[in-house]
């Protein structure tokens, strides 16, 4: 068990800088998820921690040891790869025992550890099989087993679930979380899937172009994204963005976009004072937009004051029923907005719809580079 710290970590491949100096501390026992779009340097970072990739500059410590120049075998970490990387000529038992054998465990010491790991993952029946005789899900379990059998200081996962079908992925997600709770070992998990990040991580690290954009708990990064990129990346479907201007009127402060104008709640007027009259990016999540009609019918408690002037109108373009909810693409002016609505609502493509924005949940970002979140200093 160990704390892992990265400081000013960089990685160059020739001229190309894949990781551009990142600082990160992962506490002992934490489940940290590195998430970001393809090519942002997640795997490279993970592989540097594992010792599979040389560090260009910076420092990595695991526990109290600087591991920059340590070979992978001396770092006492385990890694699970996307392609499983099981040794094809060895039985499951030998695959699990390999790491122990390489570390000089005697045959007699190996067996109980292998059995324990196999029991934990429910693969004791598969021990005598070869990897090619296993299904994808079973291989994944064996790969996990090979990692946990050694009881390492930390686990590193590089998109371990991306080769599984959707249902199995959900199941393995839960299982990994359970495993983490049970072992209480530091885990670093790389994925480009924000759902995996949100559901499993106790700490989410969002990366882009070799840089860390934000670090925080799942709800933190969801509620308070520090820039437009994070806001758009976390949450599915993604947050809606509008180019807008913050204007002061007699009745209060308004967000004025090309096709609508909505009032800013009084609570927020103070903090937003600094961007009055400036171009901003206005963001609102699909679940924070409601159908005006439905709210009225239900006399909903969501919006105590259903102000008619915080309403926007549009035309229903696409309806995607998902069962418990439906996603509706609404065309407002020349921009399409995604709205998450109650499926009981009777809608038809082409009809007009009035939408009520929950402005308490609004986000504002600087329209100038670097699209940082605007809030009270």
């Amino acid at each position, binding site marked *: 068990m160990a704390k892992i710290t990265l400081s000013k970590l960089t990685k160059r491949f020739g001229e190309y800088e894949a990781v551009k100096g990142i600082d990160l501390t992962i506490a002992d026992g934490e489940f940290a998820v590195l998430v970001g779009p393809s090519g942002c340097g997640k795997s490279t970072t993970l592989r540097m921690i594992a010792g599979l990739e040389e560090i260009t500059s910076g420092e990595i410590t695991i526990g109290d040891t600087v591991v920059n120049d340590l*070979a*992978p075998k001396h770092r006492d970490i385990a890694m699970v*790869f996307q392609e499983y*990387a099981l040794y*094809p*000529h060895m039985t499951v038992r030998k695959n699990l025992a*390999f*790491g122990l054998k*390489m*570390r000089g465990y005697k045959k007699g010491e190996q067996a109980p550890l292998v059995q324990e790991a196999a029991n934990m993952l429910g693969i004791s029946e598969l021990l005598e099989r070869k990897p090619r005789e296993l299904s994808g899900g079973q291989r994944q379990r064996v790969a996990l087993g090979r990692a946990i059998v050694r009881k390492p200081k930390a686990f590193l996962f590089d998109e371990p679930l991306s080769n599984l079908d959707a249902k199995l992925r959900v199941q393995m997600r839960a299982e990994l979380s359970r495993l983490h709770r049970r072992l209480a070992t530091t885990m670093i998990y790389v994925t480009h899937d924000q759902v995996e990040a949100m559901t499993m991580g106790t700490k989410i690290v969002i990366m882009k172009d070799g840089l860390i954009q934000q670090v925080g708990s799942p709800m933190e990064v969801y509620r308070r994204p520090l820039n437009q990129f994070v806001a758009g990346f976390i949450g599915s479907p993604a947050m809606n963005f509008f180019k807008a201007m913050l204007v002061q009127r007699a009745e209060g402060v308004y967000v004025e976009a090309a096709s609508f104008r909505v009032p800013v709640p009084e609570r927020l007027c103070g903090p937003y004072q600094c961007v009055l009259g400036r171009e901003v990016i206005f963001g609102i999540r699909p679940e924070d937009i409601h159908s005006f009609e439905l709210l009225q019918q239900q006399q909903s408690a969501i919006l105590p004051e259903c102000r008619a002037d915080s309403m926007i109108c549009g035309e229903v373009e696409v309806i995607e029923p998902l069962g418990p909810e439906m996603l509706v693409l609404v065309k407002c002016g020349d921009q399409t907005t995604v709205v998450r609505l109650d499926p009981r609502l009777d809608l038809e493509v082409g009809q007009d719809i009035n939408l009520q924005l929950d402005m308490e949940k609004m986000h504002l970002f600087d329209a100038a580079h670097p699209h940082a979140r605007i809030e009270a200093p």
Partner: protein
Amino acid sequence: MKISERTAGYSLVLPGVFLICALLVYPVLYGVYLSFFSKHSFFPEQKFIGLTNYLYLLQDSDFWMSLWYGTVYSVSTIVLQVALGVAAALILSQTFRGRNFVRGIVLFPYIIPTVVAIILWKWLLNNQFGFINYVLFALGIVGEPVNWMGKDHIMSSLVLISVWEFFPFVVLSVLARLQTIPPVLYEAAKVDGAGQLRRFFHVTLPQLRNVLFVVILLRGIWMFTKFDTVWLLTQGGGAEKYIRTLPVYAYMRTFMYYQAGLGSALAVIMFGVLVAATAVYFNLFRRGDE
């Protein structure tokens, strides 16, 4: 008229079956048939003599010598070829500058005609003005020129030349297989704590197992029946006797003593030895699988 699917099928494979019979089955059977006759190689006179050819060979010390030489030659060349070939393939699978150039060079010996290779080596190994003797002498390794084509060294020379000529085949096969081993296996092994040597023995070698099985089998058959390299090296030297392997001996019996029947018997024995060795080999491999 409607041709049934069955008839159509048979008529389609018929030409193939005929070709196989004409080109494979007939010559082999004819060879076996001939081995029971006393037959002159060119004149159409033959006499059935049953197993006499075989019985004669069992008492023929020349036959036993050639079987021995053939075995020594095949086993030593295969061991050396495989060791050298795998080593070279491992080196060539690394990334380094000029790799493609070196890969091309390594394949050279396999491409040049045997005749040329033999002339080249005879020249290199010449005991009076050969380059190899010159180097050995200059380095002080030998005190006097080694007679490479003489009785004592001709087998070593033959093995050396054959290994040089045929190891690129091993390189080619092994290199092709090496490139299909997923690099992530090595990374997993690194994280699991395996050093370079253990990664070779626990990851690389097991992956090469199947290709080595085929390579050793093929090379074994080819080395045991190799004629041209051996024959060409014996030309113009007095030590011919000391590298007279089975194929050469069969050739001599057939085309120098005109004993076609005896030659055929030799060929049949060679065939039998190969079949037996292959069977044992397959069995060993299968047992190793468990």
